[in-house]
């Protein structure tokens, strides 16, 4: 999921940049073509599994009442015990109950960010039947004995269902289910407004059973998302005839009946299903890289929809090359209008929601960023189905890196804003955002453990992406891309944890990188490179008394400058718990520069030499590779005459202030 709204930092940067006229590169970068898959990538793709292990299959029929905003659902759930343990209970997620009252975990934990306001109209799910089919007998309704909430906790999003008998490892059961959803007004991903309906987290969903027999169940927390097993979803949707449907999976069949539109969507190898129905959707369709892409948008948003389609034209083949082919035949992109903006910026298998105002200027790339971000979730969440509640950085953080990478490759340094001479990259925004919370909490922790929504966003999204981008800039883009690509392919249709990711980095990039990654993710790792001293003294002979061979004693006065050259020295420090190899650029009085390399392992490094020219200044990490450097303002040092001053700032500040005065003056 990604917040659709432009981050305040970006708005501030835009406002200030527009004020001062920060320049963009000389020419807008031409969109780079997606890289052709390397031979090893092609062969790696050939080795990808064709299908996931089918664990939880849902065959549902859902009928929408667009006036009451009620979805009536019924069908069957087939579930298989893939653990090594026999189980006597099921845990069932009833996510929609998060919006039933303010005693839900979701609404109790309003720590900022999306979904913080209570819905104007409550939403809930009522399960009427969950009947276990028994061979040679009537089905046993196990719902009446279900435990909807724990003692002392009114949250009803995590139900425990006792079974009449054990389900053995490998055994499959079938449950008949009937339920009614009352949708809330749109709040965080789901709901209605007028005739608009976005239907997510809408059916009783069986929690994932881990291989050791432990249920990975949890209430619907404010900051957490989801986790489920793969399976086949066969869903028949029934809406008024005038409505347009967008849904997970390809449309298998449809017909009109008694003023209703009936559509059947079927998709295997996925772990969730969402859909939208609205009588005002406009649409466009295009085949991209063999995938049928449908984009649904409101009237008046065609220009934005075309921009989003252009982003997909680049990003879909690019991400396939990076992280393995997209295995589904369709992709549906839903762009809600702004008054239901919380339905935007969300990912489901083969269906993503994006967002952005219809008037978004072409140089503000928010619609493109959100679209590329949600597309990336098809890999990091969809195909690599990590536990989003327990390890949100594994989906949002890694995917944020994928977003930065794709946007940067496509749009260059202006990958977030490229307007009026101001170019700001997606990576720069994340670097600064991540810095702001670097010492607050670890990145690698459950979503519900974060103290605030701001910390969650800055650490899970921005910090993770900045860490990976730093590794990319320091050790090489190819290596990090290969590591993430190996991770995405190796764990396709699986449910890896953090160790899997770090293990792949160790395999591809070595133990030092893996250790750095672990520290950065788990231990609030940080680093600050600093120039702690720059000196240039005219070379002098050492002063004092010196015994010579003949027994004479020579006296050298202090400051006796009878040798040529300069004694130059630079002290560089590394503070913090992370380390990266860095360059130190030395600038001399004659204008020449030289670079020294420091492996960054110690806490400090002194460079000292005698040379013909005086040193004037030094810069550590001159190419801005260490994005997670805590303080960039101490990355340089100079002798008293060595600094470059701030002439550009004076020039631009004067100019834009003059223009402002002309606007304000009579």
């Amino acid at each position, binding site marked *: 999921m990604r917040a659709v709204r432009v981050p305040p930092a970006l708005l501030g940067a835009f406002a200030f940049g527009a004020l001062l006229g*920060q*320049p963009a590169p000389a020419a807008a970068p031409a969109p780079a073509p997606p890289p052709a898959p390397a031979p090893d990538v092609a062969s790696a793709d050939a080795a990808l599994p064709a299908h996931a292990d089918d664990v939880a299959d849902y065959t549902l029929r859902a009928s929408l009442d667009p006036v009451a905003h009620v979805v009536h659902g019924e069908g069957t759930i087939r579930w298989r015990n893939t653990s090594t343990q026999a189980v006597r209970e099921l845990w069932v997620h009833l996510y929609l109950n998060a919006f039933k009252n303010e005693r839900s975990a979701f609404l109790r934990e309003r720590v900022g960010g999306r979904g913080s306001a209570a819905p104007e109209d409550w939403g809930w799910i009522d399960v009427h039947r969950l009947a276990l089919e028994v061979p040679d007998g009537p089905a046993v309704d196990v719902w009446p004995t279900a435990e909807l909430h724990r003692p002392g906790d009114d949250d009803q999003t995590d139900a425990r269902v006792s079974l009449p008998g054990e389900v053995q490892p490998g055994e499959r059961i079938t449950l008949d289910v009937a339920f009614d959803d009352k949708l809330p007004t749109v709040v965080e991903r789901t709901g209605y407004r007028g005739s608009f309906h976005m239907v997510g987290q809408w059916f009783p969903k069986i929690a994932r059973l881990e291989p050791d027999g432990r249920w990975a169940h949890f209430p619907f927390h404010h900051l957490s998302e989801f986790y489920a097993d793969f399976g086949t979803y066969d869903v028949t949707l029934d809406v008024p005839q005038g409505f347009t449907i967008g849904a997970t999976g390809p449309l298998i069949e449809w017909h009109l009946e008694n003023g209703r539109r009936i559509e059947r969507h079927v998709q295997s190898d996925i772990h969730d299903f969402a859909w939208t129905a609205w009588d005002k959707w406009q649409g466009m369709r295009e085949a991209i890289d063999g995938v049928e892409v449908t984009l649904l948008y409101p*009237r008046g948003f065609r220009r934005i929809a075309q921009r989003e389609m252009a982003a997909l034209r680049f990003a879909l083949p690019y991400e396939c090359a990076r992280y393995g082919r997209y295995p589904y035949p369709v992709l549906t992109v839903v762009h809600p209008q702004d008054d239901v903006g919380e339905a935007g910026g969300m990912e489901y298998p083969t269906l993503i929601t994006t967002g952005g105002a219809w008037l978004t200027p072409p140089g503000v790339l928010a619609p493109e960023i959100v679209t590329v971000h949600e597309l990336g979730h098809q890999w990091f969440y969809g195909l690599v189905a990590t536990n989003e509640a327990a390890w949100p950085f594994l989906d949002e953080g890694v995917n944020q890196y994928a977003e930065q990478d794709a946007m940067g490759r496509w749009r260059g340094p202006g990958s977030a804003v490229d307007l009026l001479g101001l170019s700001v990259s997606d*990576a720069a925004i994340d670097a600064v955002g991540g810095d702001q919370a670097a010492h607050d909490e670890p990145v690698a922790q459950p979503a519900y453990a974060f103290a605030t929504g701001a910390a969650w966003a800055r650490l899970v999204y921005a910090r993770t992406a900045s860490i990976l981008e730093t590794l990319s800039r320091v050790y090489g883009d190819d290596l990090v891309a290969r590591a993430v690509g190996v991770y995405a392919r190796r764990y396709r249709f699986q449910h890896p944890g953090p160790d899997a990711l770090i293990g792949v980095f160790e395999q591809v990039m070595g133990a030092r990188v893996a250790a750095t990654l672990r520290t950065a993710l788990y231990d609030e790792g940080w680093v600050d490179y600093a120039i702690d001293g720059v000196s240039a003294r005219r070379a002098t002979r050492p002063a004092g008394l010196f015994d010579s061979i003949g027994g004479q004693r020579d006296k050298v006065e202090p400051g006796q400058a009878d040798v040529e050259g300069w004694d130059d020295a630079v002290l560089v420090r590394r503070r913090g718990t992370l380390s990266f190899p860095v360059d130190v650029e030395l600038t001399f009085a004659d204008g020449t520069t030289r670079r020294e390399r420091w492996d960054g392992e110690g806490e400090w490094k002194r460079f000292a030499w005698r040379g013909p020219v005086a040193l004037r200044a030094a810069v550590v990490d001159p190419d801005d590779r260490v994005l997670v450097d805590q303080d960039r303002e101490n990355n340089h040092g100079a002798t008293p005459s060595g*600094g470059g001053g701030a002439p*550009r700032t004076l020039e631009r500040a004067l100019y834009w202030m*003059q*223009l402002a005065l002309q606007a304000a003056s009579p």
Partner: protein
Amino acid sequence: MSTAALEDDAPRRRDDLVLVTTPAMRARRHPFAIAALWAWQTAMALLVAWPARGLVQAAYGNDPRGDAALWAPGGHALLDWLWRDAHGLRSVVGSAEIALGAAAVLGLVPMAAVMIAIAHTRRERLEGRWSAAVVEIAAGALRAFPAMALLLVVVTIAQGVVVATGLALASAVESAARVGMGEARAQQLEGVVAIASFAAVSVLGVVHDLARAAVVRFRVRGFRALLLGARTFRLAPLTLWWSWAWRAAAALAPILVGAALASRAGGRGGFVLLVLAAVHQAVVVARAALHASWWAKALRSVDASLRRAIA
């Protein structure tokens, strides 16, 4: 009000200032006045720009590349500086707000001075005594200040009322149209209503400038000047509005040129920075000249309007 000065086309004296003929009121004949206006704006801008420079100097002054990193594509250093030095930046922004507010009021004096320079010639100037002429113009501008200030208050309030009403109406229209037309079309309609209200505000602005011209031209007080301005506008509303509008539009073009050049210059310093600074200052001067040109047009218009009234 005396209209004797309008009765023939010969330059004539009134106190120490000598009125010029209506067609002779041209901004292009007064490059020094335009330069003085630029100098005033530059001095005021420096009050804010210098502390901003100091803030950046403290952070990046020791970098041998200076503040080039701040202006590099990608914006990492810029964003980082905005966050890290937010407190200092807030004080600079606060200074800018004060400077802008002060300029809106104190700027009436240089504006009046430019108008006086355009509308009159001076006996001292005719006699080659420039410094005395400058003093005389400044004294005239100071004398015009109270009337100008009164006009500023009255018209600003009126413009505020129009804008608030227009935006409230626009918002109401958007809300009413949203369900039927959809968000985008409703907001476009809202934009049309808002633009219409800004057009009304610009009409008030034109009348305001005509009234200011009347203050300078006829030395009338605020409300009398407003009536003269309104009467002048009523005689040729479209012509006058267009005279203002094309200059306002033309004044935007140099900004785009300046932005494009800044974009090309990037973080480069040295000669490129000097050229950029020269172009930027040329943009500021060009805009000051367009302002002065409009004020000259306002002066000619109120002059002609009164001639027509007499005729």
